[in-house]
């Protein structure tokens, strides 16, 4: 018998992984959660049929969403992670001894519980004493704060579905308010490559750009996400991701990483022409 997991990247493009075994299929109040075992990517899980994380390539995403802002401002003390139920972003953050407080808010507690059980490697630091977990809508959580966080990481799902509110002007506006005077907002920025979320992505980019004095986009190569060419947003009130990078300081921390390094840090902000063009287009 052949069992394949297939994700439609577009109505006419498919990405498939041969599945050894399906370990879990569960419906939470918010979304469908499935966990699979495969030869090529190891264990992976999907939300509403879209791959969120595989054991083989999750390090790329989590390296890039955490170490880029941390290297731009090593003084970050208070961090808010919105989404990120798999715990990967929190795991990377806890490696910085200088961080004092990490709040993580995910709308779906079941995702966190599934990851605690099936993805111990990513979720292992969720019980770090600096970490507090909240289970509610990120849009709701963030609007109650003013000048609270040095860094907000938006580790969300795609812009249609439970994550939709995390791509809106009101969300970014409330994040701006929740950030300290030199705060940084990093977000999972989708991909420019396929039409599906293109307009939503452009709109989100424009909204962040309107709000933050510093706003740039960087990229990473993530094999299991649609097109493999993934973008992240870096927005801040003060720090410039390249000019303010103190490579020596970050390297002195001695953190070992699979993807991130301080050369790549700079390179990741150098975008291909067609991507620049798409980002500059007003949606």
């Amino acid at each position, binding site marked *: 018998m052949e069992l394949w997991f297939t994700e439609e990247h577009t109505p006419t493009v498919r990405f498939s992984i041969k599945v050894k075994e399906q370990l879990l299929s569960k419906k939470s109040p918010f979304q469908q959660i499935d966990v699979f075992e495969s030869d090529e990517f190891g264990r992976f899980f999907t939300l509403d049929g879209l791959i969120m994380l595989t054991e083989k390539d999750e390090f790329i995403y989590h390296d890039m969403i955490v170490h880029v802002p941390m290297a731009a401002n090593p003084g970050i003390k208070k961090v808010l992670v919105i989404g990120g139920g798999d715990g990967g972003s929190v795991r990377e953050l806890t490696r910085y001894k200088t961080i004092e407080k990490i709040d993580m808010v995910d709308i779906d507690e079941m995702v966190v519980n599934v990851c605690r059980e099936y993805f111990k490697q990513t979720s292992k630091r969720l019980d770090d004493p600096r970490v507090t977990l909240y289970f509610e809508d990120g*849009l709701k959580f963030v*609007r109650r704060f003013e000048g609270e966080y040095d860094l907000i990481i938006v580790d969300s799902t795609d812009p249609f579905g439970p994550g939709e*509110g995390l791509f*809106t*002007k*009101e969300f970014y506006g409330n994040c701006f*308010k929740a950030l300290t005077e030199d705060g940084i907002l990093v977000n999972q920025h989708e991909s420019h490559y396929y039409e599906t979320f293109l307009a939503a992505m452009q709109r989100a980019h424009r909204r962040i750009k309107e709000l933050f004095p510093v706003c740039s986009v960087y990229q990473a190569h993530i094999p299991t996400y649609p097109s493999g060419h993934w973008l992240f947003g870096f927005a801040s009130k003060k720090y410039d991701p390249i000019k303010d990078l103190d490579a020596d300081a970050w390297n002195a921390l001695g953190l070992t990483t699979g993807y991130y390094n301080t050369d790549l840090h700079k390179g990741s902000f150098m975008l291909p022409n067609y991507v620049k063009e798409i980002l500059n287009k007003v949606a």
Partner: protein
Amino acid sequence: MDQECAPLHSALIDYRKRRVVPFDVPGHKQGRGTPELTQFLGKECLSVDVNSMKPLDNLSHPTGVIRDAEILAAEAFCADAAFLIVGGTTAAVQAMIMSVCKGGDSIIIPRNVHKSAINALILCGITPIYVDPGVHPTLGISLGMAAADVERAIKEHPEAKAVFVNNPTYYGVCPDLRRIVIAAHAAGMAALVDEAHGTHFYFGEALPLSAMSVGADMSAISMHKTGGSLTQSSLLVMKRGKIDPEYVRIVISLTQTTSASYLLMSSIDIARKTLATQGTELFGRVTALAAYARSEINNIGGWYAFSKEIINGRDVFDFDLTKLSIHTLKIGLAGIEVYDILRDDYGIQTEFGDMGNMLAIISVGDTNYNIERLVAALTDIKRLHGKEGIDLWDHEYIAPVVELSPQEAFYAARKPLPLTECVGEISSEFVMCYPPGIPILAPGELVTREALDYILYAKGKGSLLMGPQDINLEKLHVVRRGS
């Protein structure tokens, strides 16, 4: 036949199964002749966009599935008869008025009535006897009429044929409907109720009284507004007694299409079934969502999402908890400005904004996510645009000075005049902000300085002003003197 049935819906499913070869209208022939339209709306939809035929009954003369659907609707709304209406609640309101009044009659009516009611007066030559609905001193919204004021009007105008009532107003304010109905009936007048915004009163819990529950004669119900049917579909429900339902059907037919849309009618049938079988639960959720939104919005500070605390036993006798009405002036913005900012900057479309308030409709289709977006957007608007609270316009009620009946003014010889030169003239046109579509001026009314100032002010704030022939509203048609 019980409320679990949807006879019209079932008949259309049967029709589809029979694979009938159509040699009748509509000419798109189940969508086959119009590929672009069919692709856009869907084959399933076009396949039941059909004309009346024996198995599907006929709205003008219902003897089959439409009659069954109407019987079920009547039962669901605790009425003796119900009519499916495909011309919007406008058609239902006009049929109510035309069923009890004829040329030369008069009707007692609140001034904050929807223009559809005044249009009926123009069509039939009926004279309005306006009752001041009352204005809230700080919110600036017009209210629901104090029962005592209605009783006084009834006493002063015993010749009136009917009393017309909004239940609720656009903002969710309800009058003492029971007392008004009793007073009208005691004087031999019909009690007609505009429940365009009150469909849910028949199904929810802890909601204001419905027209049928207090024995009103007729009510116009916008199924499409909060009931979940398609836009333009509506219901007229009534009690037998003062008015004969068979006569009402004839009055409805005067202006009703003879090609009633089965999409609209089946949507009423399905919505009625859903409301009758799950309404309590659905509107319980709606009420809870609205209550949550109100408390979160009031916590932001500045915004005032008002509720039952405005009840005063007079012109605010009850309040519809599903309405999310927000007073905006303390944020330093007019309601219409917030309405525009929400749409243009946040992609959030609310129902309307006027000078001091805006209204978000919460209905069966709302989710927690959407509520969070609205609350978050209001938080952000305060951050970006909030300033010192302002007093914009201290009241909205412009007492009308009626010089001619609406019909006389509408058909009188008339001339266009620049708007600013119209003070002292009699308007032959409507002027209103839309939405909500409540006239600032109606045909036959004197253009007062106060009315003109309000129109200019609303225009300056960006309200969409409608009514006059001149769509830019630079000129207004007024009645030629001495004609």
